[in-house]
C-alpha cells in the first residue's frame, strides 16, 4: 500500500510551489532556512537543506576524500560520489552528501561525519556501521523513475534518480543520484543490484573471503556449548539427567546416515543402529531435552507422502515398531504432535511477516501518519501476532504434557528442522532456567538450530536462490522469546537488546553460525579444497563471540542488570541438585493433580461462567480435539501463583498480552521517538543504581580489608540519561527527527506582522498555495 505512494514530491515541484506568492521568490526559502537553523547540530557543514544545483557546486569542493573502512578480504567493487542520503522522515529532501560504495561485503555510505567521528556513540557495532548495509541485509531495492517507484532486480535498462534500499533489519535508505555522474550511477546501481539481488554461489559469500584473509586469533573458547563433539552431547544428557534412557550415537560419523543430521545426536537407548540407518534417520525419535521428572522432548522427521502403497505400508510398520519400543517402560507414555498440521505453515509465516514488516518500513512521515489511524487493525490483519500466539500456546501445551502428565512428547515435522526447532527451543526456555542465561540460550540455539540442522541459508535466502524457501522461522523464535523477556525481565540474563542484536547478526556474513544449512554443509565447505588453500581449513568466527561486533562498553547493554541470578551453590553441586529443586518451587506436585472433588473446577460453575461471561473459557485451546481443560487448568493455575524466575515460566498469551517487539521494529522510526523517555530511561536509572551498589560493595570490601572481589562488571555510564531518546541504543536520529508541526514561518510571519498588515492586498491567493 505504501509502495504506491510516490515518495518524492520532487525538488522541482517544491521549488515552483511558492512561485506565485511574490515574497517567496528570493532564493533561500525562509522555511528551509528556519529548518536548517532548527537542527541541533546545525553547525555541521554536511547538512544541506533543499538541494538545488547551485548549492551542489558550492558543496562539491568541500567534500573530502573519504575512504571506506574495509575488513580483511573485503574488496571495493564500485563507488559513486556526490550521492545524497536523504533524511528519510519527511520527504523534505534534506540530506547529507557523500560517497556510496559497494564492496563484496556491504553497501556503505560515507559522509564527512564518518570520516571524523568526533562523538562516538555509546553503542556501536564495529563491523556494521550506521550507514553500512551488508549485502545479505538488503531486502528490496527500489528505484525512483520520474517519481514512480519500481522494484529493481536483475538487468536494468534505465537508471533511477533515487535509490531506495529496504533492509532486513528494517532500515530504509534513500540515496539521491541526481547529482552523480551518469557513468557512476550506472556502475553503482547495477553493482548494488547485482551483488545483493541476484543468485550467488555459496563460496562467493563474504564469509569465505573473510575467513581466509582475517588473522584468526580468537581464542574461540567461550561458555557456549557448540555441540560439535560427542562430549558436548553427553554433557548435555548428564546435565538434564537424560542419560539413563537416552544415548548419544556416533552412527552418523562421516554422514553415513544423512547429510541433514548432525554428526552426533541422541536417541533412545533401545533404538538400534540399523533402524537409524534404514530410512536415513527418518522415523527416528531424536532427543531434544529431558525434563526433571524424566519426561523427554523428542523430535522426528516424518516420511514424505509415498505414492507406492507397499512402501508406505513398510514405513507404517516401521513407525509402529518404533512407537512400541519407546512407549514401553522405562519410557513414559508418548504423545505425538504433528506440527505441520497443528501450526501455521511456513508459507503462512512468511506471508504474515512480509505484511507485518511493511508496517515499519517507512518511507516518509506522511505514510506513517496515514497508517497510524488504523494501527491496531492493520497490525491484526497481518496475522503475525496471531502466529506468535499460536506458537506460544503450542509450547505451553508441550510443557504441560512434560511437566504435569509426565508424558514424552514427540514433535513431528517433515524435516524436523523448522517448527520443531521453534517449539523445542521455546519449551526449553520456558522450562529450563539454564536456557535463560546467555550462555545457556546460545547453547540452545547451537543445539537445536545450528547443529540441529535448520536451513538458515535457505530460510533467510542468503544466496537469493529461491524465494519459495524463505521463511523467518528463526525470527519467529526470537519474537516469541521476546514476549517472554518482556513479560518476565528478571528471569533472563540477557536483554531485549541482546535479542535485537542477535536478529541483526543473521545478516552479517562474517560469522558462520547463520550461513549454512547443516553441519554437513559447513564441514564440507570448511576444508577449502577449491580455493587457494594457503592456510588449511577455514576457521570461521562464531556469532557468540560478541566482542567481534561490540566493545565492552556496548556489551554491557546485552546483559540484564536485574537478572534474578540464582545464588550460586558450589560449582560441583550445580549440575546435580539445581534443576530439580527449583522447578519444584514453581509447581509443587501436589498442585499438579487436579482436585476435581470439591474444588473450584466443578462443572456447574464452569457452565455458569460460560453462560454469563460468554464462550471464552476454553476457547483458547479448543483448536484441537484434545480435551482442553488440562491445558487451561495448567495455564491458569500457574498464573495464579507468584512467579519463580528460576522455575517454569509460562508466557501470557491472551489477546492483549502479545505485543510488538518495539525495539526491533520501531527503532528507526523518528515519529515513535521519545526524548528522554522509553524503557531506556528506567534502564539508565537502574544502571546508575547498580553502579552505586558496586561502588559501595568495593568500599565494603576495602573495609573488610579482604581480597577485592574483582568481579565488578563494567557498567556503562549513561550520565545524560535524561537526554537519551527511547530509540537508544539503535537509531542516532535525534538530530534530525523533530519535524515542525507549525511551520516556523508562522511565527516568522507573525513577527512581520506590520508588513503583513500593509500587504493585505497582495496576499489574497497565497493561502491556497500554502496548503
Amino acid at each position, binding site marked *: 500500500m505504501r509502495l504506491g505512494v510516490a515518495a518524492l514530491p520532487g525538488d522541482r515541484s517544491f521549488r515552483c510551489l511558492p512561485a506565485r506568492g511574490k515574497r517567496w521568490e528570493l532564493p533561500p526559502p525562509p522555511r528551509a532556512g528556519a529548518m536548517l537553523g532548527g537542527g541541533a547540530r546545525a553547525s555541521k557543514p554536511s547538512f544541506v537543506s533543499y538541494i538545488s544545483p547551485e548549492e551542489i557546486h558550492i558543496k562539491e569542493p568541500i567534500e573530502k576524500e573519504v575512504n571506506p573502512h574495509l575488513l580483511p578480504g573485503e574488496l571495493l567493487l564500485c563507488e559513486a560520489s556526490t550521492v545524497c542520503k536523504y533524511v528519510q522522515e519527511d520527504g523534505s529532501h534534506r540530506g547529507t552528501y557523500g560517497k556510496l560504495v559497494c564492496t563484496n561485503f556491504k553497501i556503505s555510505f560515507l559522509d564527512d561525519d564518518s570520516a571524523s567521528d568526533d562523538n562516538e556513540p555509546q553503542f556501536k557495532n564495529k563491523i556494521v556501521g550506521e550507514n553500512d548495509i551488508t549485502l545479505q541485509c538488503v531486502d528490496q531495492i527500489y528505484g525512483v523513475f520520474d517519481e514512480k517507484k519500481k522494484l529493481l532486480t536483475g538487468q536494468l535498462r534505465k537508471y533511477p534518480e533515487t535509490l531506495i534500499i529496504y533492509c532486513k533489519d528494517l532500515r530504509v535508505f534513500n540515496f539521491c543520484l541526481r547529482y552523480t555522474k551518469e557513468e557512476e550511477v550506472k556502475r553503482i546501481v547495477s553493482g548494488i543490484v547485482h551483488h545483493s539481488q541476484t543468485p550467488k554461489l555459496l563460496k562467493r559469500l563474504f564469509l569465505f573471503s573473510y575467513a581466509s584473509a582475517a588473522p584468526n586469533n580468537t581464542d574461540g573458547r567461550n561458555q557456549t556449548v557448540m555441540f560439535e563433539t560427542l562430549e558436548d552431547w553427553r554433557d548435555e544428557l548428564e546435565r538434564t539427567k537424560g542419560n539413563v534412557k537416552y544415548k548419544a550415537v556416533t552412527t552418523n560419523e562421516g554422514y553415513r546416515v544423512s547429510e541433514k543430521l548432525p554428526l552426533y545426536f541422541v536417541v533412545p537407548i533401545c533404538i538400534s543402529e540399523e533402524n537409524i540407518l534404514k530410512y536415513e534417520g527418518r522415523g527416528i525419535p531424536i532427543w531434544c531435552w529431558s525434563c526433571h521428572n524424566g519426561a523427554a522432548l523428542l523430535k522426528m522427521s516424518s516420511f514424505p507422502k509415498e505414492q507406492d502403497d507397499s512402501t508406505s505400508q513398510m514405513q507404517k510398520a516401521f513407525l509402529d515398531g518404533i512407537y512400541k519400543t519407546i512407549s514401553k517402560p522405562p519410557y513414559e507414555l508418548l504423545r505425538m504432535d504433528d506440527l505441520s498440521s497443528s501450526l501455521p505453515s511456513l508459507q503462512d509465516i512468511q506471508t504474515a511477516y512480509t505484511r507485518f514488516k511493511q508496517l515499519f518500513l517507512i518511507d516518509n512521515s506522511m505514510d506513517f501518519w496515514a497508517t497510524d489511524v488504523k494501527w491496531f487493525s492493520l497490525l491484526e490483519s497481518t496475522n503475525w501476532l496471531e502466529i506468535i500466539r499460536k506458537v506460544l500456546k503450542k509450547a505451553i501445551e508441550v510443557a504441560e504434557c512434560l511437566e504435569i502428565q509426565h508424558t514424552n512428547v514427540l514433535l513431528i515435522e517433515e524435516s524436523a528442522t523448522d517448527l520443531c526447532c521453534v517449539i523445542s527451543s521455546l519449551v526449553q526456555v520456558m522450562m529450563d532456567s539454564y536456557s535463560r542465561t546467555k550462555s545457556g540460550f546460545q547453547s540452545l540455539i547451537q543445539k537445536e538450530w545450528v547443529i540441529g540442522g535448520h536451513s538458515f541459508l535457505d530460510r533467510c535466502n542468503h544466496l537469493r536462490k529461491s524465494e519459495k524457501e524463505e521463511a523467518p522461522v528463526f525470527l519467529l523464535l526470537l519474537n516469541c522469546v521476546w514476549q517472554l523477556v518482556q513479560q518476565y525481565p528478571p528471569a533472563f540474563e540477557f536483554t531485549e537488546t541482546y535479542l535485537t542484536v542477535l536478529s541483526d547478526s543473521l545478516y552479517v556474513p562474517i560469522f558462520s553460525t547463520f550461513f549454512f544449512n547443516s553441519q554437513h554443509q559447513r564441514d564440507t565447505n570448511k576444508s577449502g579444497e577449491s580455493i587457494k588453500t594457503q592456510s588449511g581449513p577455514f576457521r570461521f568466527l562464531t556469532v557468540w563471540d560478541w566482542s567481534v561486533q561490540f566493545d565492552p562498553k556496548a556489551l554491557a547493554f546485552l546483559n540484564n542488570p536485574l537478572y534474578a541470578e540464582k545464588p550460586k551453590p558450589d560449582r560441583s553441586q550445580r549440575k546435580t541438585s539445581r534443576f530439580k529443586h527449583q522447578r519444584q518451587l514453581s509447581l509443587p506436585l501436589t498442585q499438579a493433580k487436579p482436585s476435581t472433588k470439591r474444588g473450584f473446577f466443578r462443572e456447574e460453575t464452569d457452565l455458569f461462567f460460560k453462560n454469563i461471561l460468554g464462550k471464552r*473459557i476454553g476457547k483458547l485451546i479448543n483448536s484441537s480435539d484434545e480435551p482442553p481443560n488440562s491445558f487451561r487448568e495448567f495455564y491458569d493455575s500457574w498464573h495464579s501463583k507468584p512467579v519463580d524466575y528460576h522455575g517454569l515460566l509460562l508466557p501470557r498469551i491472551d489477546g492483549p498480552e502479545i505485543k510488538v517487539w518495539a525495539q526491533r521494529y520501531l527503532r528507526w522510526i523518528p515519529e515513535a521517538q521519545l526524548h528522554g523517555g522509553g524503557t531506556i530511561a528506567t534502564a539508565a536509572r537502574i544502571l546508575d*543504581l547498580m553502579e552505586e551498589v558496586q561502588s559501595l560493595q568495593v568500599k565494603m570490601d576495602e573495609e573488610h580489608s579482604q581480597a577485592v572481589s574483582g568481579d565488578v562488571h563494567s557498567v556503562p555510564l549513561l550520565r545524560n540519561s535524561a537526554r537519551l531518546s527511547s530509540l537508544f541504543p539503535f537509531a542516532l536520529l535525534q538530530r534530525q527527527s523533530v519535524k515542525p508541526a507549525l511551520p516556523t514561518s508562522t511565527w516568522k510571519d507573525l513577527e512581520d506582522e506590520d508588513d503583513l498588515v500593509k500587504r493585505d492586498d497582495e496576499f489574497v491567493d497565497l493561502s491556497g498555495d500554502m496548503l
Partner: protein
Amino acid sequence: MAGQGCQGRAGCRSAGRDAGAGPGARGSFPGRSGPGAPGPPGQSPCAMSGAPGGRRPPFPALPGERVLEEAAGARRRRGNGGGSVPGTLLCTNRRLAFVPGQAPGSRGLLRPEDEVALPCIHKLVAASSFSKPKVLTAASTLKFIPEELAVFCRDFRLLRFSFPENGLAPQAFRVANAIAQAREAAARLGDAADGWASPGEAVPEEEEEEDEGSSTTLLFESLRDWEEELQRLGAAGWRVSAVNERFDMAPSLPQYLWVPSGLLDHDLKRTFGHFQERRVPRLCWHHPGGGHLLRAASFHPASEPGSEDVRCLEELLLGGRGPCVLADTAELPTLADIQLAHLRLRALCLPGAVAEEKWLSALEGTRWLDHVRSCLRKAAEVASLLAGKRCSVILQEPSDRDLNCLLASLVQLLGDPHARSLPGFQSLVQREWVAAGHPFPRRLGLLCQDSPREEAPVFLLFLDCTWQLLWQFPAHFGFTEAFLLALHDSSFSPDCSTFRFSCQRQRGRSSLPRLPSQTYRPMGGWQEPGGHRGHPNPCSFPPVWAWGRRYSRQQREQFRNPAGPPGPAGPPTPSTPAEPCPWGEPRLVLALAKGSLCPHSLPWWSRPPQRPPLWGSPSGSQGTLGGLLGTSCQPPPGLLLPCTAGPCVRLWHRCYLRGLPQEQRGRLAPSLAGLTEELQLLQERLRAWNLRRPH
C-alpha cells in the same frame, strides 16, 4: 527520593487544620477506642455487634457504617483456577466487603481488592446450577438460592463469591438481596450529597507518619495554599483574588482566583457576566520562561460588554503579556464520546468479550485510545507553545468544568517537573479538578437521579493519559502506576471526600439540603441563602490523599517511583526565558486549531482581523512539535513531549484487565524496588562499619 508522599492526614495540611472543627459540628461522633486498645481504630460499635458468631476477624468499619447483612463461610474466588479464599462477605450501607478468614493485617485494614464501594458496583449477577443467572437490582429480587455471586465493578474489577452448600443458603440469599437494595439506597443517598458527609471524624492513624519535609499536598481550600502555590510558580504580575470568597461571583468556581495584579477586584467583577457559568479566565500555571496558561469558560453568547467592561476583559485576557492563544476543545472528544468509549472498553475488558485474534481491532473499535491520543496531542501542543514562546494560552471550553480540567492538568504534567512529583500531582488534581469544580458525582455516575447522559469518566481519561506519560517517561515521575491505580479505584470510594462533590461551594454546604449548583444568574451577585460566612464548613471525611487510612505502609511505599527523579523537584529553575514576544502589537489573538495558529478575534471586536489565515502543513497536527517549540530541536529540559503515534499509546493493562481471570501480577517494579532496598541496606551496613571502625 525522600520527602515525597503524603502519608496520613498530616500530609494534607488543610484537612489537618480543619479537623478540629469538623466533628463538633456534626454530633453523633462514634466512640473511639483508645490508642492502646487492641481493636482496629475507628471500629464503630454497631459494626462489632453485627457479627453474630464472632468467629470472623473484626470488620474495620468506617465511621457511620453499618453492617446490613453478612454471610460467613463464603469464598472469594481468585482468578480462574487461582483457588478461593474463605471468609465472610459483608454488605454495609457503604460497601461490599470481604473479610478473609485469616486476619488481613495487624492494623485491621481491609485490602482494597477485597472491598467495593456500593456506587462502584456496575452489575450484580447471581447464579446457581438450577437456574439461569440473574441480574439483581433493587426492584427484582432473587428467587433462588445463589451459589455464585459475580460483582462487575465500574473500576473494571470482577469479584466472584461462591457459597458452599453447607447450610449457608439463607445467608447467601439475604446478602445478595441486601447488596442489591443497599446499592440502590446508596445511589439515592449520593444524590442528596450530604449523605456522604455523615457524621464521623476520620480517625487519625495510630502511627501518624510525620511528613518528611516541605512537600505536602495543597488542598486549595485556604488562601494560604493559593498564595503559596503562586509564589512557587514565580508568577510575577499575578495575585490571589478573594472576590469569590462567598461564592457569590461564580458559584462553581473556587473561593480564590489567580488574576492579573493590574486588575482590581472591582474591575474583575465586571467580567464574570460575560462567561458561561460566570467562569472567568484565571491563571493555572506560569511557565518559568514567561508563558501563562489560563482557563476559562466560553464567552457568554448574550453578553454585550460596554467599553468599560471591554477594558477589564482585555486586561484579564491580554494584559500586555504577549500574544494570546485561544485553545478550544473542538478536537477533543465530547463527553458522550468519552462515555461511549469507556463503556465499550469496559465491555471489551470483560473475560470472553472478544476472541483473541480479534482483540486488537476490537480495541481500536472502542476509540478509547484515540481519545487518549487526541488529549495528549493537544496538551503537547499547548505545552510546547508555552515553552517556546512567551505568550499566554487560554484553554476555553464551554463549561470549563470537564476537558479544561484535563487539559490544564496534562499541560502542567508535561511542563512542570513539580507536578510530576507525588505531592505535586496531588496538589494538581486538587486545584485543577476538585477546586475548579469538576462535577465528579455526575461524571462518575455515582448518582442515580441524573440522567445517564451526564456520566462521562473524564477524570479516568485523565488518569489514563497520565499513565501513558508515566509509561513513556518512567524516569520523570515521582509516583508509580500503583499510585494511579489507587487513585483510579478511590474515585468510587465512599470514605473520602475528594470525589464526592461538584464544587467547593457544594462541599462547604454539604450539610445543607442539596442545592442546584448550576443556577446561573446573568448579572448581579449570587445571594447566599444560608448565612454561611467566612470559611465554609469543611467536610468531615478526609481527602483521598490520606492514603494511610486505606493502604498499608507497604502498599504506600509502592506509590513512589524508585526510578523517578532522584530528589524532590526543586523550585522551577529560573531557566532561560523563552523568546520574548518580538512584535509590538498588544492585541494579537490567535486560535490554536489542528496544530496550527491562525488569527482570531474576540467577540466584541467589531472588525474581524484582516489577515489571511496562517496554516501549518496539513499533516502537521499529528507530527511532533518542533515548530511550536520555536527554534530548538530537542525539547527543553523539563518538558516532556509524548509520542502519540499508534504503537506508542497503549492499553493500561493493569487497570483495565483486572477483571480477566489471570490477574496482573508484580511484573513492573519489584526488582527495581528491591535494588533500591539493597542499596539502602548496603549504605546502612557501610555506616555501621564506619562507626565500628576505631579512629
